[in-house]
């Protein structure tokens, strides 16, 4: 198991574990309101295009305590989705007509009903994505067969690997994480994941280990492919370059390291109208462990629920959700900077 080097902000009673404190800080920067930028681009109020992706946060429990985690996840977080809420998810999924269900956490695999839930989704014929932190596969014997389980349900595995070396990876994700991640990637490769022609998709996620924007996604992908193959005989499909969003633990890092103002200015100056057009919240719904509905995982962590009458799965109304206005705030600059950022990488 990855060495626990930090506690979650919540366990520390850190003030930035509270969403209102985070929002206050984001406003105190005195930067152009994101809403004004969207207005200039002709996109305010921001409207959904469809409800194609259902992203479900299955709980905040995780075996890692990454420094940049926007969920503030960790072994000390006990919030976890129950089977009852999963049943409500399944009903809502039917009503939504979505094609893809994206499972995240924490480490979603730590939810005791994870496999049951995947089986239900699989029987519905949905495209399933699991955001796997890799180390969970080698964290305990009971997780060692996850690659086989993913394969059985043709799950798309999306995994974070900030760099092809241990220094940067461990600095962000914890001591020993790189070595364990490589072992897990080799296990995924062994059942066919990432192998050409296997149909089993293994995508990696890069996010900057610090206060800077991600490099060009395709250039970086080329380097990752070459280095991982050469050094570790690891193969994968695509690399998603994701911008760190200034909330939760990453926000705390920015403040503590004196990079907060510089990073926010950078995000605002890098505002790209084309990226704003393609933000993921226009085609995604985000569900929390307790069944509330949000425009995205970041809004979820800031307790900004959808602007509809029913905000819980039990009141799910696809038409209302399609007609809603998406809640935006200053953190949204993270998704519109440069080449844009989403859970599937750049958006332009």
């Amino acid at each position, binding site marked *: 198991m990855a060495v626990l080097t930090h506690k979650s902000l919540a366990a520390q009673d850190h003030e930035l574990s509270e969403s209102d404190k985070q929002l206050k800080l984001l406003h105190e920067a005195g930067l152009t309101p994101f809403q004004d930028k969207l207005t200039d681009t002709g996109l305010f109020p921001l409207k959904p295009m469809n409800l194609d992706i259902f992203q479900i946060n299955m709980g905040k429990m995780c075996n890692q305590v990454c420094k940049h985690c926007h969920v503030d996840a960790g072994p000390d977080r006990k919030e976890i989705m129950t089977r009852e809420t999963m049943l409500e998810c399944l009903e809502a999924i039917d009503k939504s007509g979505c094609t893809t269900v994206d499972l995240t956490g924490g480490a979603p695999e730590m939810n005791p009903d994870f496999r049951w839930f995947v089986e239900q989704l699989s029987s519905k014929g949905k495209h399933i994505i699991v955001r796997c932190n890799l180390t969970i596969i080698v964290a305990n014997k009971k997780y060692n067969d996850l690659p086989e389980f993913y394969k059985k349900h043709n799950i798309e595995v999306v995994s974070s690997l900030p*760099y092809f*070396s241990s*220094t*940067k990876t461990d600095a962000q994700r914890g001591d020993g994480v790189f070595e364990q991640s490589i072992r897990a990637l080799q296990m995924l490769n062994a059942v066919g994941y990432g192998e050409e022609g296997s149909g089993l998709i293994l995508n990696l996620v890069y996010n*900057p280990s*610090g206060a*800077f*924007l*991600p*490099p*060009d996604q395709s*250039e*970086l992908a080329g*380097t990752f492919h070459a280095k991982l193959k050469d050094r570790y005989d690891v193969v994968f499909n695509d690399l998603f370059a994701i911008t760190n969003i200034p909330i939760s633990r990453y926000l705390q890092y920015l403040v503590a390291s004196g990079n907060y103002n510089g990073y926010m*200015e950078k995000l605002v100056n890098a505002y790209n109208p084309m990226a704003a057009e393609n933000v993921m919240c226009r085609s995604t719904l985000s569900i929390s462990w307790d069944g509330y509905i949000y425009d995205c995982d970041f809004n979820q962590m800031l307790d900004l629920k959808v602007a509809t009458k029913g905000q819980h799965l039990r009141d799910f109304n696809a038409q209302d959700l399609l007609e809603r206005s998406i809640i935006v705030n200053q953190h949204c600059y993270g998704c519109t900077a440069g080449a844009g950022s989403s859970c599937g990488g750049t958006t332009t």
Partner: protein
Amino acid sequence: MKTYYDPEDLKKFGNISDFQPELGKKFFEYYGNVFADGALTKREKSLIALAVSHALQCPYCIDAYTQDAMERGYDEEQMMEAVHVAGAIRGGATMVHGVQMMNKYKELSM
């Protein structure tokens, strides 16, 4: 504390056009063109700029091109190797003048 260099001044770089708009405009157009993709990529130019920044010891340029190089996917080892290139050229530039010293020494000696 008042110092000759203020990191905040980097953001005011564009203000040099205030005192001479025409030349300022031409300079920034040129600057933009130099760093666009050409026979060399933007990424390659970024690393050259990082090395030159060190050779010229420009603190603004070092800040700017350190961040730029990171955002173009260079790691610390590659960036330090670029600084060594600047260091080697600076050192070499000093040392190669040793030949001039030797020539003069010999000229002045019996």
